[in-house]
């Protein structure tokens, strides 16, 4: 049995599906591809696949990954890529297969690129306001969860950021805490920024990469 980490992008129409739907879609593709993937042995046998860090609905991801176990060695990684892509919608395409070198639990940071635009104000105003907003000492935001409302300081979770002003939008490149504890969803920053501006903002969010606690690329 060989562990394989399958790298793919989630984009186009497929950015609008939830993690659960992505999971279903991948299982179906694995089934259709007839690759020798290890199946669960319960009442409903299905290909066994895990996702190191799920991606929220609406986000694009250019370096997403999924772990499977291969039962046979006689498949080249190139073959796996082409077989899977033939079974996937165009919004989800595999581009690499590696042997995992880090465990999923090592993920500590994620880098996002957030394109922000607003009908009411131009991009230079957005950029100005955004740098004002991100230099606040505390960025408090009320997070609604099943247990009720709690106030969190998002600033704690922002490791680095950089703002780029473009013609009709602003790109915020930001590294945020990620993983099973202290995960900061970039949507929180967008919502907090909307509160700060008192204006609705449209955000197009892409996850670029994942890192471990030493900021080494997750592979």
């Amino acid at each position, binding site marked *: 049995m060989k562990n394989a980490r399958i790298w793919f992008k989630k984009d186009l129409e497929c950015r609008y599906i939830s993690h659960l739907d992505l999971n279903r879609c991948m299982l*179906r593709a694995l089934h259709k591809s007839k690759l020798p993937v290890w199946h669960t042995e319960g009442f409903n046998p*299905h290909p066994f696949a895990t996702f190191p860090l799920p991606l929220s609905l609406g986000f694009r991801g250019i370096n997403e990954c999924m772990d499977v176990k291969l039962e046979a060695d006689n498949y080249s990684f190139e073959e796996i890529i082409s077989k899977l892509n033939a079974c996937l919608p165009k919004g989800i395409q595999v581009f690499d297969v590696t042997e995992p070198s880090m465990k999923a639990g090592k993920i500590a940071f994620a880098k996002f690129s957030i394109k922000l635009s607003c009908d009411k104000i131009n991009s230079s105003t957005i950029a100005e306001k955004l740098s004002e907003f991100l230099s606040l000492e505390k960025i408090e935001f009320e997070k609604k969860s099943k247990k009720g409302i709690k106030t969190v300081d998002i600033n704690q979770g922002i490791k680095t950021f950089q703002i780029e002003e473009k013609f009709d939008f602003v790109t915020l490149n930001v590294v945020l805490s990620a993983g099973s504890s202290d995960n900061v969803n970039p949507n929180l920053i967008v919502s907090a920024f909307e509160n700060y501006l008192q204006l609705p903002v449209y955000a197009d969010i892409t996850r670029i990469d994942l890192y471990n606690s030493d900021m080494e690329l997750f592979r």
Partner: protein
Amino acid sequence: MVSKEVEKLLLKVQKPGRYVGGELNEVIKDKNSVDVRFAFCFPDTYEVGMSHLGMKILYSQFNNEDYIWCERVFAPWIDMEKEMIENNIPLYALESGDPVSEFDFIGFTLQYELSYTNMLNMLKLSGVPIKSCDRHDLKQIVVAGGPCACNPEPIAEFVDLFFIGEGEEVDLEVIDLFRKCRKEGKSKTEFLQLCSQIEGVYVPSFYEVSYNEDDTIKSFTPKNNAPSVVHKRLIKDMNSSFYPDNFVVPLIEIVHDRAVQEIFRGCIRGCRFCQAGFIYRPVREKSPETINAQCKALCENTGYDEVSLSSLSSSDYSQIVLLLEKLNEWSKDEKVSISLPSLRVDGFTDEIMDKIKTVRKSGLTFAPEAGSQRMRDVINKNVLEKELLATCETAFNGGWTTVKLYFMIGLPTETMEDVEAIVKLGQAVVDTYYKCPNRTKGRSVKVTVSASSFVPKPFTPFQWEPQDTIEQLHEKQSHIKECITTKKIQFNYHDADTSFLEAVFARGDRKLCKVMELACERGFHFDGWNDCFSLEKWLELFDECGIDPAFYANRRRSFDEILPWDHIDYGVNKSYLINECKRAYENTTTPHCRLKCNNCGAAKYGEGVCFEKRKNMV
């Protein structure tokens, strides 16, 4: 394809995956290199519409033709609808993202009466005039088909032409005719006139209706050379008829998320309440070889690990055991499970059970439809209590612990005693469980008793029957609740209000068009969903239009009344239906098609079950 404008709305609504397309196996063509663009509209949500087999068949078949590009359109859920209206975004097709108003054909499949308002609402959201007479040019041709097209009258003013019967052949004939007419510069009326000469096409604007003083129909007069009776179309050979080897595989979970394989059309039984049992006559089967090959191709092309064998009554497939054997030859290795819905109580044998259990165990559902034997004889269900109990015993001994039983209340001649018998039958099933020596030890049994309200439908022996009033139905529902004394029986029932509205539209006439028009104006939609349906609002509309809905739902019609759908022919003679209705009053059953031909009229098509024996004799 999603436009920039739509993209901005998607993150504000629930399940945006409904509105984007982009699925595996969707068909993308160059719009400039096709002659005809067809918007196939399903008047309900994406999850419901994508589960519908008819749409999958026609989508593939249309797109198989180089000159047609068929795209899918679904009704946006209320949150998306609101966003679209606020942002001036018209309804669009999923494949190209182009507005529906740009299409040559706007086709609807009508699966249930309560989706009529969605159909009109979808036209409204597209910015297309809802009334046929307000669409003048040879474009935006609104067509409709499906079981509800058997009584097209309540929506006659909105639809340019209806497809009567099965669509695989007639739809393409009409689309091809359209292409020719447009090349020749013909008008919409000229096109419709030529269409009306095609068998299976009904152009409602070519008929004039007059009424008697008591509001019943006096006469139906065709004009523009239209035929006085429109005959349904039917596929004669199921083995050679088109079936897709490929489904669009949804990105989000839908209602029936699996491959579906049709095994035959029609039903031999002739249960007297069942419209499908009459309008799809005669029974025509696919061969086990065809089914096996089609199943395999579907699973390979979609990646689904479950195939459902679809028909009105799977266990009536004449070679069911042979078929399951063939499927089992490969399905286990491919980790594909076969599910067999619509099993009859008397068709669930050990042999079938073993074969469908091999990979995955799903729930068991049976439909005795009525509690007492007398009632089951009235509806011609031809199922005995001991058969049901024996079947449950087989299932319980085979490891099942839950069974769902479907019933109807409000059937013709029903008494409170018949209603009580539903609970008694449920109790008998519970008792059977504890008598089974091989039942799953340590588990309790769960019997779900589900009661829907009877809705009299056109082209059935009960088409003249009054529906129980809402009060009567409520009384019967609460009586069932009172009679249940064990927690092992769970009782579900269908809302009587929606069944009432369904009954009004099912047997309505053209006068209902103005109610529908007003409903559309007032923004009615999703009547099949509790979130939106309000009987109160509907009653206000009927009142405003001066129409008494009880006239359609609760009135007993006489055998000699001209019914709104009498100018449409589904192959079963009216005299046969009258005779069946009379037999129902006498508690007399009628044997099914394989036991004895009862001369319903469907033999005129020269195919199917009517000739099975004759073929065997040659």
